[in-house]
């Protein structure tokens, strides 16, 4: 793994937050990936057209960027397919019930000083930390 410099990561974060801010400033919408993805999956709502464009743009941009920044998207994932499916189910259920993920709650919610998003972020980071610690203790996922 060739890890980018701290400065590159900070600049990436600044770009991400700025882009999310402009989606709200220009279009009046929150850039929450789980909500956008769900809108496209359950297509039919009033807001789902822009969500489809956003999703298509994210997939295309991610594809191009992974060629520009080799190694960022791994060629091989350590997790087995079974584990990936279980994790995907938990992420789908959890973000649906919790109304958001790392982008909607973690970046936009905290950036808006939403108490609800603070709590959600503390909870999912906390349960993520516990999960990784448990996986390490039981010699699990990696």
């Amino acid at each position, binding site marked *: 793994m060739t*890890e980018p410099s701290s400065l*590159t*990561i*900070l*600049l990436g*974060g*600044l770009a*991400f*937050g*700025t*882009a999310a*801010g*402009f989606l709200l400033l220009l279009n*009046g919408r929150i850039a*929450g*990936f789980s909500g956008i*993805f*769900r809108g496209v*999956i*359950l297509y039919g709502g009033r807001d789902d057209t822009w969500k489809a464009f956003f999703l298509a743009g*994210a*997939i295309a941009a*991610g594809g191009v*960027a*992974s*060629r*520009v*920044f080799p190694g*960022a*998207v*791994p060629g091989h*994932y*350590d*997790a087995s397919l079974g*584990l990936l*499916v*279980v994790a*995907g189910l*938990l*992420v*789908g*259920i*959890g973000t*649906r019930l919790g*109304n958001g*993920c790392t982008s*909607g709650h973690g970046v*936009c919610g905290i950036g*808006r000083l939403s*108490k*609800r998003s603070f*709590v*959600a972020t503390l909870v*999912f980071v906390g*349960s*993520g930390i516990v*999960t*990784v*610690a448990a996986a390490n203790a039981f010699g699990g996922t*990696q």
Partner: protein
Amino acid sequence: MATSLVAAHVTDPRMVLGFLDVFGQWNPAIAYFMVGSIASFSVVYRLVRPREVAVLGDEICVPSSSAIDARMVGGAAVFGVGWGLTGLCPGPAIASIATGGVSILAFVAAMAAAMLIVQPTFTRRAARSAT
């Protein structure tokens, strides 16, 4: 947005798992991404706050719910477990769809299936869910 996730290697699960491995070999790198993105979003948000409508004329849709209930907290906890198992959350997974191969497709398909299943069963009782 997807470009910045890839450029900062947030799409690499090992970076994310390292960030969550606080009690093991902690790698704080992802914290720089979170700090940078929250900071820049807050700055732009200051321009949004006083506005009645967005620059392009649409209404500004910001979640109005402030309810911190068992459903929300439980959901966040479940999400964290899924995130901690593989180091993948929705944004980076979506940014990796084009090049992440069958691993990412399996994760994203499972995420989609879960969202389809959870929708009718649980949301009817929810008061007003903001996305």
